[in-house]
C-alpha cells in the first residue's frame, strides 16, 4: 500500500468506527452488550429492530419526522425556486441587500427563536403539529435553498430564457420544459440540505412538539428506561435514522460539491 493511502485509510477508519460500533451494537443481545467487549456480535439478533417496528411510539416518531421534513422540503422549494429565479434574473431596488440579508438569518442559533415560535404557534393553534416544525425549519432552510438555487440558476445563460421566448414558449412552459431540467441538480442539492437540516435539528423540533408530532430525534434522546440505558434499542433506532439521509445523499452525490459551494462553481 502506498504511503499516501495510509493516512486516508486511517481517516476512514476513525470516521467509520462509531458507525460500525452502532451497527454491531444494534445487532447484539442486551446481555452481550453489557457483559463483554466484542468486535463482532457472537449471536446476531434483530430483536431491537423488532421492538422498534412493533412499538407505536417509535413508529409514530419516525412518521412524524418524515412528515415534517417532507413538508419542510416542499414548502422550501415552492418558495425558494421562484425567489432564486427573481434574484438571478432581475435586479430590483435593494436586491443585493435582501439577498445578503437572507443568509444572515442562518447566523442566529435556533435556540433564539424557541420562545417566539412557541408563543406564536400557541396563539395560532399550530403548537404540536407537523406544520409548526416544518415552518420553523423553513426559517433556516429557505435562505440556504435560495442561495444554492440562485447559484445554479445564474450559471444558466440568460440567452436560454430569451431563446425560449423567441421560440414561442410561454413563461410556465419554458420553466417546466426548458429551465427546470437544467436546474434539477440544484433542486436536488437544495432538497438534500433542507432534508438533513430538518432531519437532525433537535432544539426547535423538541420545543414545538409534545406528543402529536414528536420527532424521532426526541424519542432517541428519551431512550433511557427504568432498567437503565437501552443500548441495543438506541443503536437500532440510530441506524434507522441514518438510512433516509444516506439515501438522499446517494441521489445527489454528483452535484454535492457544487451545492456546498452554493452552486457557484
Amino acid at each position, binding site marked *: 500500500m502506498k504511503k499516501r493511502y495510509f493516512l486516508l485509510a486511517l481517516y476512514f477508519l476513525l470516521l467509520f468506527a462509531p458507525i460500525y460500533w452502532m451497527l454491531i451494537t444494534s445487532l447484539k443481545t442486551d446481555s452481550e452488550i453489557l457483559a463483554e467487549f466484542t468486535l463482532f456480535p457472537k449471536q446476531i439478533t434483530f430483536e431491537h429492530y423488532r421492538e422498534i417496528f412493533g412499538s407505536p411510539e417509535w413508529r409514530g416518531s419516525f412518521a412524524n419526522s418524515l412528515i415534517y421534513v417532507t413538508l419542510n422540503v416542499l414548502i422550501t422549494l415552492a418558495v425558494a425556486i421562484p425567489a432564486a429565479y427573481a434574484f438571478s434574473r432581475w435586479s430590483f431596488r435593494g436586491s443585493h441587500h435582501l439577498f445578503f440579508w437572507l443568509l444572515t438569518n442562518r447566523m442566529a442559533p435556533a435556540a433564539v427563536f424557541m420562545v417566539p415560535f412557541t408563543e406564536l404557534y400557541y396563539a395560532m393553534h399550530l403548537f404540536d403539529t407537523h406544520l409548526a416544525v416544518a415552518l420553523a425549519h423553513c426559517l433556516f432552510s429557505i435562505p440556504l435553498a435560495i442561495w444554492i438555487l440562485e447559484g445554479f440558476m445564474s450559471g444558466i*445563460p440568460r440567452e436560454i430564457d*430569451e*431563446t*425560449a*421566448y*423567441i*421560440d*414561442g414558449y410561454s413563461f410556465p412552459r419554458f420553466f417546466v420544459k426548458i429551465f427546470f431540467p*437544467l436546474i434539477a441538480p440544484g433542486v436536488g442539492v437544495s432538497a438534500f440540505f433542507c432534508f438533513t437540516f430538518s432531519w437532525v435539528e433537535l432544539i426547535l423540533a423538541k420545543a414545538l412538539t409534545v406528543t402529536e408530532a414528536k420527532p424521532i430525534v426526541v424519542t432517541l434522546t428519551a431512550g433511557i428506561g427504568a432498567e437503565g440505558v437501552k443500548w441495543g434499542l438506541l443503536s437500532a433506532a440510530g441506524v434507522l435514522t441514518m438510512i433516509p439521509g444516506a439515501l438522499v445523499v446517494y441521489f445527489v452525490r454528483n452535484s454535492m460539491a457544487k451545492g456546498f459551494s452554493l452552486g457557484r462553481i
Partner: protein
Amino acid sequence: MGIRAEHVGRSIAGRSVLEGVSCEIADGDFAVFLGPTGAGKTSLLRMLAGIDLVDRGAVYYDGQDMRGVPVRNRPIAMVYQQFVNYPSLTVFENIASPLRAGRQGLSAGEVTARVHEAAELLGLAGVLTHRPSEISGGQQQRTAIARALVKGAKYIFLDEPLANLDFKLREALRGELKHLFRKRGGAVIYATPDPVDALSMGTHVGMVLDGRLVQYGAARAVYDAPATVAVGEYFSYPAMNVVDAALDAQGTLRLSQSLVLHGQPEAPPGRYRAGFRAHALDLVRRSTADAALPATVQLSEVVGSDTEIHVRHESLPLTVLTEQVRRFDAGEAIELFLNPAEIFLFDADTGKLAGRFAASMAVEAH
C-alpha cells in the same frame, strides 16, 4: 415593408448606451451593423428584436408599432455569439423547439420533415440524436442557425454569430449564411465587429460608434462615401491611411513636403484630413494620374496572395496592400503610387466627409 426604427435610444443605470438611432431595413435586405466592441451593436439588435425595451423612440415592423409586443409574438429569430442551445435537449429537439412551442399546430410528421430539411441544409443530419455538449462549436452554432431558420421567421437577427468560431469555420459559415438567407422573403439583421463580414455579406451597412448609428445605407455607398473619418477607418481592411493635408484654391492638395497633388476636389479650400485605403497605394503605376512617392519599408507581411507593407513616407506612417507576394527588407527604399481618385477629404475639425479629391488631370510629385 420591413423594420423601421425612429430615434431609438436606451439607457442602462442612467447611462445612455444608444441614442437617436433611425434606420429603415427593407424586406430582402441583409443589414450589417458594424462597430467595435461596446459600441452598442448588440443593444441595437436586441431593441430591434424586442428582447430589450426601447426607452426612447419606437420600432415598427411593416408599419406597425411594436412597442409592447412581447418577443414571443414577434416574427423573429435570433442567433447569439455564444452558441445558445437547450443543453438538456437533443439537436433534433433543439431545432424542433420553435415548431412545437409556437401555436402553429404542426403534425409530428411535418415537424420531423422540417427539422430534417433544416438539418440537411446545415450538415447536421448525422448529429441529430446528440446533445449540444457532445458536438463541436461549429455544429452548435449551426444548430442555433437551424433553429432560427426552421421557425420561418420574417426577421432573423444574428449577433456576431461567427465570432466564437475558428478561422476556417468562420470562412465556411460566412459563405453559407449568405446563401441560406438569400432566398427568404424577410430581412436579416447582423451585428459584427468585422468589416470583412460587412463587405462580403451585407447589402446594407450601419456603422455604430459610441452608441450612435453614424451612417446607414447600401454597403457599397457607405464604402464609397464614409460619412466620417472614423467610419472610413473602421470600414476598411486593413485600416485607412489618414494624413493631415491642406487644400488651396487652385485644387492643390499638399499631403507632405514632396507629395503635392493637383485635382478637382469636391471640397472648398482649407485644412483636411485626407484618407485613403491601403489598396489606393501600390508598387506599380496603374494609371497616368497616379502620384509617385518615395517610402522606406518598416515591416512587410505576406497575407495569403497579398502583401501588407508598413512604410514611412517622410515622417508619415502608411500602410500599403498590394496584390503580389513579395518580401521586403526593413529599411528598403521603394517607390509607391497613389491613386488620387481614392482620396477622401474629411473636415479637419469635425471629421465629416467633405468630398473626394477626384483628381483627373496629370499629377506631379516634387
